[in-house]
């Protein structure tokens, strides 16, 4: 298990991290969220020793992390980068060996990942000759080649086409299923909601929300009610007691209601107004929780 404990990092007058604390459990996908400049990249850099925290520490399986432990981690930085003129397969073998793999294993694993990503025929190409999407795949393979016990991916989905997003999601899910801890940052909150089990939301260097997405959602007192009544226009609800109108579009209306609201009564009132085409009740979306948490933390 990866534990981030009270990390604080200042760059001159700027406080990038301000006592950030959270944990990433093995076999779970953790979405690491936060506005730009919240401290996501700095946290990841602290995990890999690329930044030294002023206070706090990073622990792995209960012990402070060191260079040997880090060799078993895989990292995909936000600023992608590999050797442009190096051949793809040699590049993967090189990084595998730098993680302590014997040459033979490194070659086998590099070959296996290239096959997985459909890049076997490009193994001998120079990286710069590959398309952008394929370069991204090689970058992911670089983080995976040594079969890491923890994957830390900074914005892995940014710049990918839908096909690339699907492959990426499939691979991280599969790794998590194999017991690997996966931490990734993203601004695509719908995607995170779909892929992840856990989230950590960070704002201004502090963790403002953390936990399983389902739990966070049910812990939130807010519920959304989406109702669409044919031909009702803006006439329904006539009496919005206990509900706030979040927005309207044609015959559809979105309400913010309290957990304790009487749904039966609301449905009856809707049916009285016309033909009910949609009546959906549920917790807020992750993106709404995110906005709420970030605003509350500000």
């Amino acid at each position: 298990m990866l534990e981030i404990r009270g990390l604080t990092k200042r760059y001159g007058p700027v406080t990038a991290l301000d006592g950030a604390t959270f944990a990433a459990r093995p076999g779970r996908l953790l979405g690491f969220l936060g506005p730009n400049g919240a401290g996501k990249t700095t946290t990841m850099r602290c995990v890999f020793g690329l930044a030294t925290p002023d206070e706090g520490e990073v622990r792995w399986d209960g012990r402070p992390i060191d260079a040997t432990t880090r060799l078993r981690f895989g990292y995909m930085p936000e600023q992608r980068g590999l050797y442009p003129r190096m051949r793809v397969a040699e590049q993967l073998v090189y990084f595998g060996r730098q993680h302590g793999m014997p040459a033979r294993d490194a070659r086998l694993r590099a070959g296996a990942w290239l096959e997985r990503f459909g890049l076997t025929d490009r193994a001998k190409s120079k990286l710069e000759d590959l398309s952008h999407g394929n370069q991204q795949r090689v970058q992911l393979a670089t983080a995976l080649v040594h079969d890491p016990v923890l994957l830390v991916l900074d914005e892995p989905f940014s710049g990918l086409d839908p096909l690339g997003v699907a492959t990426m999601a499939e691979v991280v899910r599969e790794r998590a299923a194999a017991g690997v801890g996966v931490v990734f940052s993203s601004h695509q909150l719908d995607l995170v909601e779909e892929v992840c089990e856990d989230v950590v939301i960070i704002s201004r260097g502090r963790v403002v929300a953390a936990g399983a997405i389902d739990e966070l959602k049910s812990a939130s007192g807010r519920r959304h009610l989406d109702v669409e009544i044919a031909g009702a226009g803006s006439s329904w609800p006539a009496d919005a007691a206990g509900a706030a109108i979040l927005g309207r579009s044609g015959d559809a209306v979105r309400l913010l209601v309290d957990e304790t609201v009487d749904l039966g009564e609301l449905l009856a009132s809707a049916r009285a107004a016309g033909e009910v085409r949609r009546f959906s009740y549920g917790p807020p979306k992750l993106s709404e929780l995110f906005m709420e948490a970030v605003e509350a933390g500000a």
Partner: protein
Amino acid sequence: MRRTTVVWLVARREILERGRSRSYLLSLLFTVFLLVAGFVLPALVMGDASTLRLALVGDAPAGLQPALAATAKAYDAKLEISAVPDRRAAEVALAAKAIDGALQVPADLSSAGTLLVQQRVDATLQGITGGAVIALRAGSTAVPPAMEVLDPPRDSDTTAIIFANAGIILMFIGIFTYGTWVLTGVVEEKQSRVVEVILSTVRPRDLLMGKVLGIGVLAIAQLVVLVAAGITASQLSGRLVLPPTTLGAVIQLLTWFILGFAFYSTAMGALGALASRPDEANNAAMPVTMSATLFYILSIVFVTQEPSGVLARVLTFLPLSAPMVVPLRAALGAIEPWEVVASIAVMVAAILLLFEAGARVYAGAVLQGGGRMKLRDAWRASR
């Protein structure tokens, strides 16, 4: 154990990636070609220069001239024979380089006589004259003419100076050609952002060391090929007589090339991390290239003039100048063995210190985006 592997992996990558590059192989071929051409072409064009010019002094024995001609033929050499009236005239002609040697043999062949030369004797000329005189005096003891060198070369002979200077120039060019590879290599890794991936497993110091080591191996390979080609070509074309100090000088040169390269390229690599684009790299490395040029000029001008002077002795122990000054003084035979040993010790210590300091600057600077960074900020940024 693990660290050695890491450094070696980095070095190996540099050797494989750059050593296979067309530019490296072409530059290797090109320099060898230039060197060989430099020796072989003049020998082909100026074939006449190999004609040996011998003057016979006073009354030469009858039959000496035909004997010389016959022996020259056996040696497959061109011999041009003239006559001078006396020894004085022979000395004048030798000093003017009008002839390569003057042979004085008594007309009655009572002795083997004397072969006069100016600075050093041509081995073929010595062989021809010796063979001819011994053949003429068949029956007497087989002794060749005695040799007399009118103006024997002194210790600080020009050949030694030329050799020393050529060595220093070669070294200076080599260090900075390959030092620039380290410099641009560092900037390219920073620019392509691959450095963040590498540094998540490799320590900055090991990365810098591996880079210097790998590129150093390529540099030494080129130097060795160059020196070997030069010596072979000079021997084959017979245009240059190597001084007896050649082997020692070559060893000194290689040793100091390695030390100088390690020192200068580490400094250049660390400073290169301050730049964010390749075109800034040369500016960033300016302090190193400038001081190296300064010390290079100091060594060429002052140390050559006074190789045992106070300045030369001081420069021997400064890491910035030692790689140029020590081999220069050694080639001129003006350095004590203890000075060489002490200077190497100072140099090795300086290189190790520089790896620590350079790695710190490197670590502080290499992950920073934005424009060019100040040395002081980089130093503070790490830790």
